[in-house]
């Protein structure tokens, strides 16, 4: 724990994970989640676990945001259509 690098990485993960919970709007949550994924990958690298970091990078940087944002778009679509009809 005496390595400042580990402390910085841990603090970053704690901050962005808290922010991911605290933010309410799903689209903004997905943005925070993407940053959390990157920061987690850095933490795993610092803890000398590059395999896990690589998994986290692969899933967290593009795939999870895409799944969340597609779901958000699907949920928002009926509303948008109503607005367009109005």
């Amino acid at each position: 724990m005496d390595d400042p690098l580990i402390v910085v990485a841990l603090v970053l993960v704690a901050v962005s994970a808290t922010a991911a919970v605290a933010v309410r709007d799903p689209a903004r949550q997905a943005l925070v989640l993407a940053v959390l994924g990157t920061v987690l990958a850095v933490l795993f690298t610092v803890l000398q676990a590059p395999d896990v970091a690589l998994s986290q990078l692969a899933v967290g940087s593009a795939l999870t945001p895409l799944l969340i944002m597609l779901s958000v778009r699907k949920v928002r679509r009926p509303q948008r259509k109503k607005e367009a009809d109005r």
Partner: protein
Amino acid sequence: MTRRTRLFVAALGGTGLAVLLVAACFCLPRFGGAQHPYGDRVVRASLARHTANTIASVNFDQRAFDTLGEMSILFASVLGTVVLLRQTRDEHRAAPEPEQVAVPVRRFALLVLPVAVVTGLYVIAHGQLSPGGGFQGGVVLATALHLLYLGVDYRALERIRPVGFYEIADALAASAYLVLGLAGLVAGTAFLANFLPYGTFNTLSSGGTVPLLNAAIGMEVACAVVVLLARFLDQAVEIEKGGEK
């Protein structure tokens, strides 16, 4: 029992659990200590089997059965998604409209797509040598394909992505993993045992069955993610409420 007593009992139990957990935490080995009894044994075993990346040796050799379980979880969850997100009777498909993408973004997507494909294959092929492996590389491959949706539009992606083909390939890759496991039985050892010659340390052919299982997982993950995203994209872009127009 009144509400008060119940709360008291719950609080007592919760406090007891918390005290025990904290006490247990103080008895844990120190963070980043020098003693790793499990790690030492794993590294010794993976070096004995000529696998440079210990994690790959754990995933695809020493605990290959666990990976079979993980693969089945992914397979089953994609199957569940396919069933849940199918087009129901009160929905219809609207053709996606073409998208106007800025030229640099479109060129970037078209240039990076092949590079990402090769990188994904590189990560899969070198799973037993350097960090990486089937799962990571497979996800990169699937993500690469969806650059076509992000950088161009959904119609372009649909042209080069026959979902049926990816579904079949997914099932084939999953069964390839099982067949490789059964081949161990045929060779006279155990299910998913590393029965092939170990090869020269730190080359592409080292590690016995590890590279083959890696490739099977890579193909399985890539196809599973493509099928999964296809369902999500169909729902988000094409399928709309209301009957046939």
